Structures are given as structure tokens and as C-alpha cells.
């Protein structure tokens, strides 16, 4: 079976209603309104897999240029880890997400304090087993971003991962 991982890009603030989302897959997304205040994007990608088999779904994210977010395993308990939550979906068995290792980073004004962050593109892998048919997984990426001299309150990047099993 072929599972097509269509794309849900960005937060619901960008996308409007969920009914509109199905018609707004990669390549047909409407231009978003200004001022999204999102520092991380969820990037589109297609996957072809066989039905009923454990498949690694790769969710690609992009941190806006000049910013960083804490990795899933930041070095201080005070820091907010990047974490993906996916709701249960009928016909889909999800395993725990697998996160990439972070990169070492220090603020120039505090070089002794080493951080573990994601910058640029990073990928979160989610093992799933999907049955035949169309599936939608609702979820969110929780993250907290900073640039070189300021930080921004934690955000939830709400997303939908849409599967079409063939």
C-alpha cells in the first residue's frame, strides 16, 4: 500500500479551517496573512510506503534564519525542550517520536553557558503502522525560540499530517 504523506504546513493560524486544509496541500497553499510570529515551519514532503508495515514518517521542520530552538534534550531543566505531540488517529499506530541530536550553541554574551539547539532544518521521525485508507494525524510541535540577544515565549506549531493509503 502506498501511504502518501501530504503536507500540512504551518500553524492553523495560517491555514484556516480543517476542511480547507485538505484542499490546501503542498503546492496549493494560500498565501498566509502577515505577522504569523512563527519561528519554525513544518515543511511538506511525500512518502511512499507499504500498508500495514512499520514506516518511519519523517517530519521536516525549518527554524527561521537567525533563530534557534532548544533541542529535545536541552542542557538545563529550565529550558523548554522541543517536543512533538501527535493525537491518536484511527487506523494508525504511532510510536514515540525520535528526535535528532542538537547542535552546541552559546550566546556571545554568555560563552560559558553551552546550549543544545536546533537551527536551520531538522527532522523528527515518527514510526507508524497505517491501515488502508485516508488518515489524518493532528499534532503540534512545542518549541521556544531565541535569536542572538532575545528570546520568545514558547509556541505550539499546530499541524496535521495527512496520509492517503493506497
Amino acid at each position, binding site marked *: 500500500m502506498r501511504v502518501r504523506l501530504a*503536507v500540512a*504546513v*504551518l500553524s492553523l493560524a*495560517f491555514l484556516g479551517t480543517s476542511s480547507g486544509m485538505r484542499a490546501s*496541500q*503542498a*503546492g*496549493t*497553499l494560500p*498565501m*498566509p496573512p*502577515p*505577522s*504569523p*510570529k*512563527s*519561528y519554525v*515551519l513544518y*515543511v*511538506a*514532503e*511525500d512518502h511512499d510506503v507499504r500498508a500495514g508495515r512499520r514506516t518511519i514518517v519523517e517530519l*521536516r521542520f*525549518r527554524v*527561521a*534564519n*537567525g*533563530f534557534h530552538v532548544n533541542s529535545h534534550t536541552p542542557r538545563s531543566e*529550565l*529550558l*523548554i525542550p522541543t517536543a512533538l505531540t501527535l493525537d491518536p488517529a484511527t487506523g494508525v499506530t504511532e510510536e514515540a517520536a525520535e528526535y535528532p541530536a542538537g547542535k552546541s550553541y552559546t*550566546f*556571545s*554574551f*554568555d*560563552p*560559558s*553557558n553551552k*546550549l543544545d539547539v536546533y537551527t536551520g532544518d531538522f527532522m523528527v521521525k515518527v514510526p507508524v503502522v497505517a491501515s488502508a485508507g485516508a488518515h489524518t494525524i493532528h499534532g503540534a510541535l512545542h518549541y*521556544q525560540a*531565541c*535569536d*542572538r*540577544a*532575545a*528570546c*520568545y*515565549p*514558547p509556541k505550539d506549531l499546530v499541524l496535521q499530517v495527512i496520509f492517503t493509503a493506497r
Partner: protein
Amino acid sequence: MIVGIALMLWAGWHNLRARRLAMQKAEENHVVLVPGAAGQPGQVEEGDEGEEPSLRGKVAPGFSLTTLDGKKVSLSDFKGKAVLVNFWATWCGPCKVEMPWFQEFQKEYAGQGLVILGLVDDVDAGKDTIAKVAQKAGVTYPILLADGKVQKAYGGVDVLPMSFYVDRNGVVVEETAGLGPKDEIEAHIKKAIASGGGATAAGGQ
């Protein structure tokens, strides 16, 4: 030595950053998806955005908040004083760099009428954690638990650290977002102390 050199480099960079700050702020808030071909990733573009509304020149919004030990503190308690209202969070690295500076300035300028109030944004971190972070930074000025309303009153506070320098008349004379040089902070404090000394505090105060 290493720290000193790093601070010098950072100070130099900050001058450049000051020029770029408005542009960067616009970029960070204006991420635009460009539709790609079917099955291809979307592209990210960044563009300009209008500046956030400023409180500079306006009466500082009043507030009444609770300290870590349960006392009520209001901006209006400090009529006739210059007040530095600083928003921070336990997860904010830049915030924790400037807090010891504020402590120094509190001691140095208290006699000239300066009051510093630290408004913690992430109240859900818990009082114990907040107290530990404040203690580690050496802070003895009041730490107030922001209630959500005060953040809205001060423009949303979507950047940390964020500081508002309120003069003796209760008017915001400077506001800053992000970590700035220590001497710039001191200059803002002096401006707040020197401004509005001849009148009774008004508005929010």
C-alpha cells in the same frame, strides 16, 4: 579574560545589531510560504512588517501584582519615583545576563529615586524555580508574578527581555526589547530619573 573578550566582541556586535534589530524583528515575524510544485516543499520567504505599537511617551499602564512572598505591589505605589519595569522568564538566557546589572543599578541609583520591578512572564514555572533563578542572579528587587493582563497592557511582551523605563511622572521614556549593552541600560535609567521630576506621578502611577 575569555569572558572579557567575549563581552567586548558582543558589545561591538550589539551596535550593529541595534541597526539591524528592526529589520530582524520584522523578518522573524513575517515568514511567508511560497507555494511550490505539487509534492515539493514550500519555500520560506521573509519580509518586512510594521513596527509594534510603542508605549514611549505614553503613561505607563498601571498594574497590581503579587510578589513571590504573596505581597501586593502596584505601580502606583511608586509615585514620584523612576521605575524600571522589566519582563523576564526563567527560560530566557539574555534576561538572566542583565538581571545582575539591574541589581547593581538598583543599589547605585536607589538614592536618586530608582525602583526596579522584575515581572516574571512564566509564572507556571513555579515560585520555587522563579525564586532560585532570581537568587542565582543576585536579585533582591521585587519579583512580581505577571498575570497575563499586564503583558497585554504592555503590548503583548512577545520578546524577552523587555524593559520599560518610566519617569517620575509615570510616563514611559524608553522601552527596549532584547539584551542591550550595560551602559545603554544605565543611560536609560538616568534618563528616567532625570525626566519628570517636577510633577506628581500621573496615570498608571
